[in-house]
Each structure stands twice: as C-alpha cells, then as structure tokens.
C-alpha cells in the first residue's frame, strides 16, 4: 500500500498533544444535555433539607419536630439523637479532626446543620423546616482568631481532656483549648539570626481574607440504598469520588464493594466539592431509614455559609536583605482561622498545606515558617479554592513581602524580583523550606513579560501621573501590579502525600477495542477542565489512535480505577502521567505484536506517530489500528490476547508551574473605583497539551482572582452572622466588571513528568490575586502606602486614599 499521506498529516489526524482540539464535552452542554446531580430524578425520590442554626455559638437545648411531622409530605426529621446509635452524629474530617453531622448539644457557627427534614419534595421539606422548633441558649461568640487564643470561652468542649486539659490533637501539641496545631518548617534559629544581622528588614502583617469558591452549581447528592441487594449508590458533586466512597464505607460500616459513588457532570468545583459534608451523610442515613432515594441540594445561602470557605490566613512576615537588595532570609508566622471544626482539605502531613512554598520564586537561603491553626465560631472548610493547598496564601504573602521590601529598599519591585530569582541553572532547586523545585526559567519569563507590557514606559507614565495628581490635574492614579509566582501542584508522592491514609497517586485504565478505538478511565473527575478532550489528546500522541476515537470516562467508582480525584491542579501532573504511562504499556505490547506481524525482532520496529515501522524500511509498517485488530484475532506466541493496560502513577515529585503577571490599573482616588486597563499573563505550565483549553483556564482563574482581590469575601459581624450570604453581597464579577486578558507563555517542561506537563488550572488564581492587589498598593506607593488588606472594594480603596490624606 502506498502511503500518500504525509507524516505531518498523520500527526494532525490524531488530534494529539499540542493542538487546539475542540472540546468533545460541548455538544451536550450547549444543547442543555448536561447531566448534573440535581438533574437526576429517581422513582420515589425524597428530598432532604436542613434546619440550620441562626446563631454562631449556642447550646441546643431541645429540638422539637412534632409540628414538622404534621406538615403534609414530611416523612422524617433526623437529629443528632437519631444518628447517635449509628455512630453517625459526628464524622471524621480530612484534617484529622471530627465534626458534627447534626448539632450535638451545641452549634459552633451560623448555618450549622441542626436537623434533617425528609419530605416528598423540596416544598414540603421547606415547610417542615419552618415548623421544627429549636431552643437555643446563646454563648459568647469568637470570630477573631487572636482573641480566640486568649479567651476563656472553650469552643470545642468535646476535645477537653478528662482533667480539663488540652490533649494533643492530630498534628501534635495544642497550647490552648481553641488552638488546633502548630506546624513548622525551616530553621527558626538561623532565620532569626539572619534577620537580626541584616542590613534591611521589612516587616508586615499580610492578611488573606476569608472567601469561598462558590461554583455556580452548589453541592448536593442523591443517595439510594437498595435494601434488596445491600448496595448503596451515591451520586453527588464529588471532586474525589473514590475518596468519598472510602469515607462513606469507613463511617457507615457498609463494605466498600457495596458502595458505588458516581460524580456526574459537575458545575464547577474550585475546591468546594472536595470535602465530605453533613448533607451526604444525612442523605445516606435517610435513604437507609426510608428505603427510598433521597436528594439533598444546597441553596446558595447554605453554600456560602457552610460548605468550604477558603483562606483566612493572618501572615506576619519579616524579610531580610542586603542593602543591594539580595534577600537573605524570610520569616513567617501564620495564624490560621479554621472555624468551628478543622475540616481543611490538605494532605495528612500538611495541616497548613504547602504554605512552605512561601519562599516563592526567589533564592532565599534561610527561612522559617510556623502556622498556628485556631478554632473560631465560623464555618469549617479551609479548602484550596482554585489552588493547590494554601499555595495562593503563600504566593500572596511572598509577593506582598517583596513589594514591601522594595519600598524599604527604595528599589523598583521588578528589579528586586529579578535579582533574587532562582536561576535556570540552579534547578532542580532545594528550597530553604524543604521543596525540590523541578524546573524553571524565571528570568526568561520575566524578561518577556517586562518587554511585552513596556514596563519602563509604564513606570514613566506612572511618574507623570503622580506629578499630575500632585499638581491637581487628575484624580486618578495608576497602579502597576507585578507578580512572579511559583506554584507547587500535583500532589503527590505517596511517600509524603496522603488523604485519610490514601496515597495521592492517580490512575488510568485503557482498553483498545478491536477496530482501533478505545476507552480510557481515570481516577479523576472533570469539573469543566475538559478532561474528556485533553486526556484523549495525551493518549492519541502516546498510542497513535485518533483522539476522536478515544472515549474518556471518569467519576464512576464501579468502573474507574482508584484515584484521589481532581483538585490542587493534580489531574494533569498525576492522572495525566498515569495516562501517558498506561499508553506506553499499550505501545510496548503493540510493538511486540507489530514485530510479529512484520516478522522481525521487537527491537527492529519503532513507533512513528500512528504505526510501528521497520527501522530503515518505512514502507514496511503496521498501523495501530491494524495492531489493535491483530491483538484480538491472532494467536501470537507468548502474548495474551487483547490490548489493555492500567497504570497507577506515583509521582516522584510535585510539579512547579510558574508565571509572570502584570496588571495595569486606574484608580479613582475619590470613589475607590478601579478600572483594569491591561492584564498580561505569562504562564509556564511545562508541555502544553491543548493551548485553547489552557487559555480558557487562565481567563477563568484570573477572573476568580479579580473577584477575590477586588471585593469577594465571607464577612462576619461580631455576633458571627454571615454578612455576605447571597450573590447580592458576595462578589462574582459580571462580563462588565471583567477586563480583557492577554495571555502568553514559555515552556519549561517538568523533567520528571512523562510528558513534561505541570498543570495550569490554578496558576491564574495563585498569580492573579497578588497581581491585582499589588496594582492597588502600587498606585499609592508614591504616597506612602505599605500594606492594606484585601478585598480592595471601593470603600477600602477610598480608605487608603483617605488615610494617606489624598482627599484634601
């Protein structure tokens, strides 16, 4: 057969890595044929919903459900007393703590679940909730973590020792009943010595406020206990379906093989859907009790008030440098507000996540970090909102400290970064706080970014603007927000990363069908990232079958191999690697089949795009399609029939994506309004699988960063009432508030990842927040501003100007 198709055309026909493949998911979504959990309707399905506490801290004296039981359609009202005999009134958290499923004697935050009303539909459930009478006795409220550590008010009486003392917690000694843990990294003494002896030290408190991932779809589930077969099926908004299955098994006692967890389409996650919530447990119990499927779907207020806050880190920092600006040491003490229960979603050994990436992109020889976790009367959570564990906090901290140091030194902040970057030749780089950065070329990225935005011209324009402002010619200032971030994603190596004892590997299983198409299943679950598109691209390149002939399936624990799910930008670094490795196993067997078919030794054939060719004789080849068929119809000596592979990939290291962002912002000194004139984002995520999807991820992450930096917060009043529980007050930008972004890239592959990819979904949030915030700060630098806390909404920007005396 004459091969009339060029090699380039064969590559294009695969739709493999590097091409802007259109998404296969979109046909369904654009026609309204997505399949989200609330779309599910089962015969006889009931609806459950919560009675929630109006108080942030109170004793629950009694729960009277008699009136509720009279409401037509109400079938059951579950309380902690009902769950206690099953041992389900409390449940373990991902952070080694335990939390109430339903209020057991007291409530610790506003919105906490008190009783679960099960009814024929959501209207009857809502009416039932109104009729449950709960008697509360209010207790003193602690919303300030610093105050909590001094207070006599004990939030978690359940954790007191028999002697009234404070026994160790899951992460070691606790020094106060409201203290959760102290976690340290680096060398304290050496760092304090360096700081004591330094030419220049900049010190600042950097607060990263409490916010919330707020995906457009809230959390929910449908639990269906089939009492005949003893099998529980649980559909839900789970970013980690396998981990949920294990958790449900451990707490319910149902054997894991009798539990099937299914994550259908997920309407955005951003970390909100990693945890296990009381709604899941109560739905399962209600289904067991009633014998019917039970649906629970949060409303938006429930979502914002209870499931999964993010951030709330008070980061006290000191950064030391020579007078020329070479950084010599970094010290950080963080007070972490975890709310009423420690339900942070971090790998077990990292109660403060990867906060110890806070040396950032800089070659800092000496550093020390301590984090104290604290209980307060706020909702639990502490999830990684579109970032790897606490990496956004870390990036914000160091990128603010760099700016403050630049002020202290009287230096340009871009130049200060440049002279302190880890150099390309220093990789792999061992950081002072314990990480081995895999690869990077920060100077190249920074140089490209500075050139792209015309940095020097911007500074000149800014200087002129300051002069004009002082001369009374304008009331607008210009801020140039810089950020060079380094992330740590792709958790992670099983040797140091686990959740509930489950190693953080991930998996891929591939079956090649006789006619040369395939299905691959993974332990991850897409929430909009486009896995069905991109993982097929990885495989197309690895196994030489067109991406369009490869189905990707995720989210069903009965069929997918075990994996730890999708969060912390781990899908590409871990499951993407598993996919490539499984593909290579397919290819290895295919090579043997091809050699047999071509009647040569295995070593005499080589892979070429979509086929194996005889070395030196390109006209002699077998396509992967032919090989697939042969695997099913030929008896090949020494080989089993079929063409399948599975890989469980334990990454040898994390990956370290990085980027250089510049935000140019106009600020109205009188109203506090801002306008983003330009935003340039250069990302280096290693090998690029699908540039279209990468760009989309960057746009989305930057917009979430914009929201966080410029207005989004979960705010409490002193009584512990949530002040921002609807989308009127919780800031999600519309298309009008969102600027146009310019994206760019460099490519520095990860040396340890099979395809060199690093992950990108979270970079723009990690890098974006400091860029926006630094722009605000930078606008006021000429007038003496050092530090002002986010979110930079109108009144807080106005307050900066006001305190600097700019309102005359």
């Amino acid at each position, binding site marked *: 057969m004459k091969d009339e198709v060029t090699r380039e055309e064969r590559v294009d026909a695969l739709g493999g890595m590097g091409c802007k493949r*259109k*998404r296969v*998911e*979109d*046909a*369904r*979504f*654009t*026609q*309204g*044929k*997505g399949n*989200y959990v*609330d*779309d599910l*309707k089962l015969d006889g399905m009931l609806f459950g919903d919560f009675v929630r506490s109006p108080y942030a801290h109170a004793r629950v004296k009694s729960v009277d459900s008699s009136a509720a039981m009279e409401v*037509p359609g109400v079938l059951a009202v579950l309380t902690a007393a009902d769950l206690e005999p099953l041992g389900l009134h409390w449940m373990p958290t991902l952070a080694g703590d335990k939390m109430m499923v339903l209020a057991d004697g007291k409530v610790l935050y506003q919105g906490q679940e008190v009783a679960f009303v099960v009814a024929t*539909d*959501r*209207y009857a459930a809502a009416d039932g909730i109104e009729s449950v009478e709960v008697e509360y006795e209010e207790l003193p409220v602690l919303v300030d973590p610093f105050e909590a550590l001094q207070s006599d008010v004990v939030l978690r009486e359940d954790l007191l020792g028999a002697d009234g003392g404070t026994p160790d917690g899951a992460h070691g000694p606790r020094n106060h009943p409201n203290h959760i843990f102290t976690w340290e990294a680096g060398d304290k003494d050496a760092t304090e010595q360096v700081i004591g002896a330094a030419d220049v030290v900049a010190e600042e408190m950097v607060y990263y406020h409490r916010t919330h991932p*707020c*995906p*457009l*779809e809230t959390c929910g589930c449908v639990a269906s206990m089939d009492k005949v077969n003893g099998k529980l099926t649980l559909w839900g908004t789970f970013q980690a379906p396998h981990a949920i299955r294990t958790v449900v098994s451990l707490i319910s006692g149902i054997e894991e093989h009798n539990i099937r967890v299914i994550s259908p*389409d*997920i*309407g*955005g996650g*951003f970390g909100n859907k990693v945890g296990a919530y009381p709604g899941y447990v109560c739905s399962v119990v209600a289904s067991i009790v009633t014998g019917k499927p039970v649906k629970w*779907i949060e*409303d*938006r207020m429930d979502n914002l008030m209870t499931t999964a806050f993010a951030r709330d880190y008070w980061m006290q920092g000191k950064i030391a440098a020579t007078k020329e600006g070479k950084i010599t040491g970094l010290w950080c003490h963080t007070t972490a507000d975890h709310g009423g229960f420690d339900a942070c979603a971090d790998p077990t050994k990292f109660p403060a996540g990867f906060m110890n990436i806070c040396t950032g992109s800089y070659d800092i020889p000496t550093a020390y970090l301590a984090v104290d976790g604290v209980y307060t009367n706020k909702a639990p959570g502490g999830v990684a909102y579109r970032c790897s564990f606490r990496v956004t906090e870390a990036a914000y901290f160091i990128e603010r400290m760099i700016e403050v140091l630049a002020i202290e030194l009287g230096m340009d902040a871009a130049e200060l970064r440049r002279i302190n970057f880890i150099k390309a030749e220093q990789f792999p780089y061992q950081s002072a706080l314990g990480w081995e950065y895999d690869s990077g070329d920060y100077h190249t990225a920074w140089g490209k970014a500075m050139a792209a935005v015309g940095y020097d011209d911007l500074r000149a324009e800014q200087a002129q603007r300051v002069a004009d402002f002082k001369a009374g010619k304008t009331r607008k200032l210009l801020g140039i927000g810089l950020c060079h971030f380094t992330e740590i994603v792709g958790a992670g190596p099983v040797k140091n990363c686990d959740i509930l004892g489950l190693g953080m590997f991930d998996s891929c299983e591939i079956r090649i069908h006789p006619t040369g198409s395939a299905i691959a299943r993974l332990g991850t679950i897409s*929430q*909009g*990232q*486009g896995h069905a598109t991109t993982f097929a691209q990885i495989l197309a390149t690895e196994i030489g079958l067109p991406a369009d002939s490869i189905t990707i399936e995720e989210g069903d624990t009965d069929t997918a191999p075990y994996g730890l799910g999708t969060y912390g930008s781990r899908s590409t670094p871990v499951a993407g690697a598993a996919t490539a490795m499984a593909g290579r196993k397919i290819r290895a067997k295919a090579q043997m089949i091809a050699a047999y078919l071509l009647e040569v030794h295995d070593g005499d054939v080589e892979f070429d795009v979509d086929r194996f060719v005889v070395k030196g004789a390109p006209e002699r080849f077998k396509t992967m399609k032919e090989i697939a068929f042969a695997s099913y119809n030929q008896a090949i000596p020494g080989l089993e029939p079929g063409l399948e592979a599975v890989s469980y990939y334990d990454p040898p290291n994390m990956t370290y994506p990085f980027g250089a962002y510049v935000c140019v912002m106009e600020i109205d000194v009188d109203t506090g309004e801002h306008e983003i004139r330009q935003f340039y984002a250069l990302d280096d995520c290693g090998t690029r699988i699908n540039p*279209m*999807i990468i*760009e*989309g*991820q960057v*746009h*989305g*992450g*930057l*917009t*979430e960063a914009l929201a966080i930096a410029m207005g989004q917060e979960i705010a409490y009043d002193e009584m512990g009432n949530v002040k921002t529980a*609807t*989308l*009127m007050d919780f800031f*999600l930008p*519309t*298309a*009008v508030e*969102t600027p*146009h*972004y310019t994206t760019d890239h460099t490519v520095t592959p990860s040396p340890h990842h099979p395809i060199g990819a690093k992950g990108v979904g979270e970079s723009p949030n990690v890098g974006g927040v400091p860029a926006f915030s630094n722009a605000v700060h930078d606008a006021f630098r000429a007038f003496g501003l050092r530090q002002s806390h986010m979110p930079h909404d109108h009144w807080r920007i106005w307050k900066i100007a006001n305190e600097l005396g700019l309102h005359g």
Partner: protein
Amino acid sequence: MSNKMHIKLTVNGAEEEFLAEPRELLIYTLRERLGITGPHIGCETSHCGACTVNLNGKTIKSCTMFVAQANGAEVTTIEGMGGPDALHPLQEAFKEHHGLQCGYCTPGMITRAAKLLEENPSPTEEEVRFGMAGNLCRCTGYQNIVKAIMAAAADMSSSKEAAQ
C-alpha cells in the same frame, strides 16, 4: 396548604397542562415537572442567570417567577433552540470558541445571547458585555463567551445576507 391551580404552558412548542401550587417556581416546573433540565439553578435570587429562559419573547430568570405568573405563557429553553441535526449558530459558536467550561451557565448564556442578538444583531464588544451582564460564569472569565457571541452575530448576519 394545598391550593393547586390549573396551569397551561407552551414549552418549546409543546402544550403542557397540569395542576400545581401557585408558589411553584417556574425553574422547578421546567426541571422537575417537565424534565427540561437545561436551565439550571445557581443563586436563587435573580443574580446569576443560570435559570434564564425565554418567556413570551423576553429572557427572564425563571427562579424568580411563580408558575402561576407564567400561566398561559410560551416558554423556550435551550432545548428549544437547536438540536443535534440543526444547532443554533450560538451553540456552534460557543463550541468553536471555547465559550464554556463546566457547562452549568451555558444554557442560560445562550438563551440570553439569542435574545440580545435579536435586539441588536451586530453588537460591539461593550454592548455584548453589557447585554450579558445578567448571566454569571465562574469558569471562563467571559472572554471567550464574548468572542463566541460576536462570532455568532457575524455568522447570523452573513447567512441572513446570503438568504436575501
């Protein structure tokens, strides 16, 4: 209190009749009673637009309308805009320009965008952003949504010209 009333709706061309409590919200009527699950529930306070449908020629937020109010109305949802054999140009454009990620806001977005282009067939980017400001998206940052709508506008007006 059970005070069901007789409701008639035309949804995507099909006549529907049923008894419902007046307080039933139109979004639940569509999703739970009629199985039309394209429109979604996002905020429940008329801020996010995930529940957007076309009602008597206006795009409205169906989480903030009682079924009793909609009695007698003609409703078009994403399901009524184009199917596998004949996609609406906006559906094509959203696919082509990566105007969606998780897909949750997409039905509301496309439904709203169709009305916007009906009122303003060749909008500027600024007009698109303003005209779409009742629909929130958490994934895309809007840039590719705007691009998709502009592209669909161009596509629709060129096919209209071709038809003339």
